[in-house]
């Protein structure tokens, strides 16, 4: 498994991790080693196997369609880094270099 520095840049962007150059170089080596180990997965014949997404056998778990008291805005905002009234405050999303 060869991983390139571009791959690391791309994945870091997807994960929204602003890593330093030094961290990226270290991660490149570490991830290559881990992926090399994980590569043994490819040797397993899975042609007859279905995927396991969860081990429980519960499906479509619903609750009664009745309203319950919500958490409430004050409690929901209590841990917000920045809030204004009943809102979370975030920076402007226009002109974002990654969203172009």
């Amino acid at each position: 498994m060869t991983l390139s520095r571009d791959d690391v840049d791309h994945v870091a962007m997807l994960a929204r991790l602003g890593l330093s150059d030094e961290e990226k170089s270290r991660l490149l080596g570490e991830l290559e080693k881990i992926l090399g180990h994980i590569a043994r997965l490819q040797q397993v014949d899975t042609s007859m196997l279905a995927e396991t997404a969860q081990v429980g056998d519960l499906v479509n778990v619903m609750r009664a369609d009745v309203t319950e008291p919500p958490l409430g805005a004050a409690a929901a905002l209590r841990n917000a880094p920045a809030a204004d009234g009943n809102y979370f405050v975030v920076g402007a999303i226009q002109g974002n270099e990654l969203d172009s």
Partner: protein
Amino acid sequence: MSSTASTITELAAALRNGSTTPRALLDETLAHLERTDKHLNAYLSVTRDLAFQQADAAAKLLADHPERASPLCGIPMALKDVLCVDGVETTAASRILKGFKPPYTGTAVQRLFDAGAVCVGKTNCDEFAMGSSTENSAFGSVGNPWDVGRVPGGSSGGSAATVAAGTVPYSLGSDTGGSIRQPAALTGIVGFKPTYGRVSRYGLIAFASSLDQIGPFTRSVEDCATVYAAIAGHDPRDSTCDPRAVDDPLSTLRRGVDGMRLGVPREYLGEGTEPGVRAAVEAALKVLEAQGATLHEVSLPSTDVALSVYYVIAPAECSSNLARYDGVRFGNRVERPSLTDMYQQTRDAGFGSEVKRRVMLGTYALSSGYYDAYYRQAQKVRTLVGQEFDTVFQEVDAIVSPTSPSVAFPMGSRSDPLSMYMCDVVTLPANLAGIPGMSVPCGFVDGLPVGLQVLAPRFADARVFQVAHAYEQATAWHLSQSPFATEAA
């Protein structure tokens, strides 16, 4: 009656015969905690006010309605810092959540509080429960009470260490790949991961949602059954929590193992197992045989590849779960004019290196072009891991093995991520299959504890207690106390 190194059973009796009170127990516990924690660093916060409030409420219930009081009423305990308590700082040992005070209490914790538990604090762990040594905490490593220069295991290292130190008789942890069983083994106590779906995760900070389970650390199997019985059972707030009735582990605890068929997977005693661990486990097998169990060598051929399955699925799920830490609704924020820059700098400053490594690994495994080769393939091999357990459980009632291939290792000795990941090779398959597992003390190597792991089929949790209890009662390992526990409070 001293609170130090006592069991829940002993303390519950003492509270009822008048030889102690919830306040007296709490005072002793806090004194012990204060003296020992400067050496152990097992606690991230001490919830003194909450504890006094709960101790007084427990005292009132024990005085007014003793017949209604649970065995847990008035007894001190601690919670891994991934379990939310309303208004009490909960950090998951991460800088990104420093100062976070949850707006609600999780179900498992609430059930203990309703039973009269006295919460003395939140325990240290690997950041977001990612690790096998507790060295990944943003707030310092935890010492093993048997040798403070060694790790207590992880990720629930603080919860294990405080019970092994004799400070509290029980604590809660979480187990995604072995994070309860492995630290229980490395600190010489009992640790239990219930069947997936048995204990509600509402209020547990998520790491890998298809694997995470909450469970207890205790000094005896009976205590473990008492705590498990209090937290298990359906909760509509966790849609993965199973509605089936819970078998009471206490009612079948003393049935023994006579006539029981126990499987020993040859892959679980492989080359990586330290000779001392192997010897202790082989001696434990003889004890079970002497109790009337029959031993059968079985095979779980995918054990080796299960590690790879785990290190795709767990990072993939964590990369998704940890997307919520973006500096908007909770947690810390690094202010930047651009939103993307704010996300990136917030997450860079907030997460430690192991969390970043796993988020990167998981994001990669889920990314376009690699999803089929890694994530989908891992999900398929996960099916194989489950099928192999099903096959083995057609022949045997339970599986017994070492919990960890090694005893507690020196801090800093496993700096290579892969060598750390190997710690969980015999615990993580149970998470992939969703089956219950326990570690019970089974000996020492050069003064360091060894754990025996007991596994059973899904929802046969009570059988795990039955096997572990039979072994425990035939041996005296669980009575050995760490140096911290033998000091007077």
